[in-house]
């Protein structure tokens, strides 16, 4: 018996279904006449996409034949997504990395070594802010070029300070001064919170440094349970316990920066990337160095542009990477849009950034660079961060003392490091 026509029809249908499905995957791999590179970023979305588009327009004009496709993800999802894409063999040609995650990707061989290309172009190297460039050097090789950097300072609402008759923060302030001001500024009747800094691991390693606490000693022993560290955690929790700082439930999903912007928060410890949003505030505000306790310590964040070690469009990727990092055009567009601080040495660009207000005291941003701290170089950063954040939440909720939390944190970190 021959296969009946209907059998054939069935088989054809099945193949057709499978056939329709398969080409979709291959499209990206097909080479095109013009070089098309993908750039994956978190810092542009959602507020600075137009700024990035403006940079791309200039770049594409200077480099005919190269087009840049932008893909974005919110910061919270970005690194999970990036990891999945690299693992899935679907890495973007060029992508953004922050300093904290740089080591993970560099050490796993996911990034292209651009040392030779950088050395071949001394002008380029000289145009990049040295401290930021250094940050993306791993084992003596350059794996990324910084595009911007930022740090965290103390923002304060001048109007609320004036109304409460409190002196503005100065560089001489310590934790004690900050807490005292927080108490005076808190006004539950008017819904005004005195201060805010998130009680998280990211905030902790810096606050700990302000008190001379080392999370991991030079010889590799975990020392997160030292009294200096306990004191630091206690200082972070006290404002919540005393009602100067809102709990998560008080916020009910409203952002802490939203409260500051609404004029309902007197002091907030947050990043200079908030400048553009806060410039819409209807009150006077300024920034100051973080108080610190026994010493000063400030976050240092730098976002770099890195090339995937898997890409086959290295030249185009390099052109975009060096343009985004060091070109005066990109830097000027960045400054014009008030989008972080370009990591360039060009004085005229920096001057025009300094000239913008608010805040009046922009020099604070550079002063903070003298006391920058970086997170301990843990290999499984994500796991440790999650574990410690949970412990800190329990301290905030009053279920655990700061001392017990850090004793537990020590065990956790040692456990993760030993695996």
């Amino acid at each position, binding site marked *: 018996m021959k296969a009946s026509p209907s059998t054939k029809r069935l088989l054809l249908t099945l193949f057709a279904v499978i056939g329709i499905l398969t080409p979709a995957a291959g499209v990206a791999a097909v080479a095109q006449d013009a070089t098309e590179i993908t750039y994956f970023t978190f810092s542009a979305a959602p507020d600075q996409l137009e700024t990035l588009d403006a940079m791309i327009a200039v770049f594409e004009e200077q480099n005919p034949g190269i087009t840049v496709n932008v893909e974005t993800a919110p910061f919270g999802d970005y690194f999970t997504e990036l*990891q999945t894409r690299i693992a899935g063999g679907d890495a973007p040609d060029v992508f953004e990395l922050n300093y904290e995650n740089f080591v993970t990707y560099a050490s*796993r061989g996911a990034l292209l070594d651009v040392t030779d290309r950088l050395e071949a172009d001394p002008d380029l190297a000289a145009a990049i802010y040295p401290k930021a460039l250094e940050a993306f050097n791993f084992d003596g090789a350059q794996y990324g070029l910084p595009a911007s950097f930022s740090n965290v300072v103390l923002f304060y609402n001048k109007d609320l300070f004036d109304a409460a008759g409190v002196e503005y923060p100065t560089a001489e302030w310590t934790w004690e001064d900050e807490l005292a001001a927080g108490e005076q500024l808190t006004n539950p009747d008017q819904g005004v919170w005195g201060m805010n800094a998130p009680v998280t691991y990211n905030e902790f390693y810096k606050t700990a440094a302000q008190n001379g606490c080392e999370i991991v000693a030079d010889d590799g022993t975990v020392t997160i349970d030292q009294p200096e560290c306990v004191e630091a955690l206690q200082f972070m929790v006290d404002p919540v316990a005393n009602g100067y700082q809102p709990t998560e*439930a008080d916020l*009910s999903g409203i952002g802490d920066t939203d409260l500051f912007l609404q004029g309902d928060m007197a002091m907030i410890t947050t990043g200079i990337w908030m400048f553009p949003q806060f410039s819409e505030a209807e009150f006077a505000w300024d920034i100051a160095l973080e108080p610190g306790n026994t010493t000063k310590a400030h976050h240092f964040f730098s976002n770099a542009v890195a090339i995937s070690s898997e890409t086959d469009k290295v030249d185009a990727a390099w052109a975009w990477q060096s343009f985004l990092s060091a070109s005066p055009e990109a830097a000027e567009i960045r400054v014009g849009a008030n989008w972080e601080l370009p990591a360039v040495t060009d004085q005229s660009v920096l001057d025009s950034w300094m000239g913008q207000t608010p805040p009046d005291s922009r020099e604070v941003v550079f002063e903070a660079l003298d006391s920058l701290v970086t997170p301990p170089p843990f290999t*499984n950063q994500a*796991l440790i961060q999650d574990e410690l954040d949970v412990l800190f939440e329990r301290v905030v909720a009053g279920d655990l003392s700061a001392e017990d939390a850090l004793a537990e944190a020590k065990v956790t970190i040692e456990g993760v490091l030993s695996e």
Partner: protein
Amino acid sequence: MVGDRGWRHAAWVALFVLPGFSALLVFIIGPILASLVLTLYEWDLLTDPRFVGIDNFRRLISDDDFWAAFRHTIGYIVGYVPLVMVSALAVALALNARMPALGAIRTAFFLPVVSSWVAVALLWTWMFNPRFGLINYALGLIGIDGPAWLYDSQWAMPAIILTSVWKDLGFVMVVFLAGLQSIPHDYYEAASLDGASWWERLRSITLPLLAPTTFFVAIISIINSFQVFTQVWIMTEGGPSGSTTVLVERIVKHAFSYGEMGYAATISWVLCLVIFAVTLMQQRLQRWSAAYD
């Protein structure tokens, strides 16, 4: 001749079985076996897989976070299963009669069932918002100062349980209704003639005859509950203070946030064994109850 027929028959069998079976082999059976092998490895997908023997199982035994997630999953089941069954049975009993607008009322119970879990979880995250949500507003109207729900480690799991009961009520109710409608009407008529009250009829006719359905619903609900994930992921992501971590959430975190494929596979096999144990228990109990019928 026979051979020819045999070959032709085999070709027909292959034609019918192979499309489905090959998909089963590649996408289900293969991965199941691979997952078993994976429990002996650690793999972050970026570097080469590393053979670790039974280290993953050893780690599991002393992993407080795993046991916490296990406890939370059991806590979820203990809260959810009885609640959804009692309320679904109550609604099914009430609906198992002629009444005005019956169709519309039944439809109302199906709306949450057909909606996606993501939409429902987002809706209830918003409902449970301590300051701006509908729940605490309604509680306020009757003079109750509502808790912080998803922001409070005591109340987050109850909120997730209530959301799940709301979502699944219609589904469980339909299964109960099917069971109720299979009870012969004569039994009730006879009982009515004997002057049995509603309560007596429920106790002596409805509940015993509904027992197989009840049993079945309980087992299905327990097995499904061990796999609770989406609502937790959307509503709390395991928080606050890690009070709502559950087994599947651990699997996803370890595999896709911490790059520990092997450990994730290990947890998934523990989950599988637990579900298997529940199924075995079901069969034992069923045999036992059949013997005493």
